[in-house]
């Protein structure tokens, strides 16, 4: 299979994953589209490393999170998002207002956390084990447990952290 086709297959299969990363790291629609495109672009740039990766399943999580962190850490120079005709970044369209409110609250709670904690919660919600989270994020397994307990505490208290 051609490199381009393999890349497209990877993106298409993980479109939902990329979308979810963009929702926890951005607030505005335009910012979200910009981050989505940046993750796709960075995946394309480092696609050769994907083929050599020991664990392809965790590779995209790392690229996505790293791109989001880099994006938010960058200087003020923002690259304008390219208009996206082929992808609609919208999930709350089923008319269930109670669910919509819950989803809004879910994102609001996650966005209150710091950049790293946001990533840890995201991986936890994705059903990753402590070992997998540790490997992707680059911290020890015990640290994952500690941070998750602190995050639970923060969420319980509703303390705003940045």
């Amino acid at each position, binding site marked *: 299979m051609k490199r381009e086709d393999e890349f*497209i297959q990877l*993106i*298409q299969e993980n*479109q*939902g994953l990329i*979308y*979810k990363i963009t929702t926890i790291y951005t607030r505005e629609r335009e910012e979200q589209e910009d981050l989505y495109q940046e993750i*796709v*672009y*960075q995946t*394309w740039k*480092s696609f050769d*490393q*994907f083929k050599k*990766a020991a664990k392809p399943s965790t*590779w995209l999580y*790392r690229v996505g*999170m*790293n791109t989001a*962190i*880099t994006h938010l*850490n*960058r200087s003020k*120079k923002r*690259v*304008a998002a*390219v208009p996206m*005709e*082929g*992808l*609609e970044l919208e*999930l709350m369209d089923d008319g269930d207002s109670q*669910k919509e409110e*819950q*989803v809004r*609250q*879910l994102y609001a*709670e996650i966005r209150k956390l*710091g*950049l*790293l904690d946001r*990533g840890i*919660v995201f991986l936890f919600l*994705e*059903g990753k084990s402590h070992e997998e989270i540790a490997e*992707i*994020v*680059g*911290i*020890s397994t*015990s*640290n994952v447990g*500690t*941070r*998750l307990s602190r*995050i*639970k505490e923060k*969420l*319980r*208290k509703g303390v705003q952290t940045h």
Partner: protein
Amino acid sequence: MIMELEEMKTLWGELSGKAENQEKIKKEELMKMTRKKYQNSLGTIYLPEILGAVICFVYAGFFIFQIDKLELQVNQIFAVFNTVLMIILPIISLVMLYRFNRLNISENSPVQLLEKFKKDKQFYRDFQIVTIVLSGLFAMTILPPLAELIGKADMVSNPQFWMVYVPIGVIFIFIFGRWTLKKYTRALDKAQEVIEGIE
């Protein structure tokens, strides 16, 4: 009302199902978007820096060819100082930009990246302070040789001119310097907060 992490997990599962069932992005659209993004990245990030560097180099080149026309030794020294600054500063800036953009996002972990960002910010803050001081010196030393070159050496030999020019320059550098320092200190504190508690 605060949502518990376990409740979040259930809701997240439902959202994941929807996210995965979205219509697949089309091949042509995806590649068009990626190519455009590449062009935009180059244009927005590198172009202004490259343009700035070119202007500095042209100016430096102008000075190099004019130095022998300066008769006053002090103006020759000022001209050499200004030329060196106009070559070195844009090069450092471009190198830093390149370093920042060649981050290996697939091999580094997010923690390694955050630590690297913190180091970069620390370096950038120190670099900005040096740049501000050098800019002040640049602003003061560029006028005498330029004035001599355009035949207005008497303008800069007038003490009244310097009595206005120097205080304004110092005030400007002070305000700008304080603002920069505050901005970077805030960014560093934030970076520290994010990586705090990592073993």
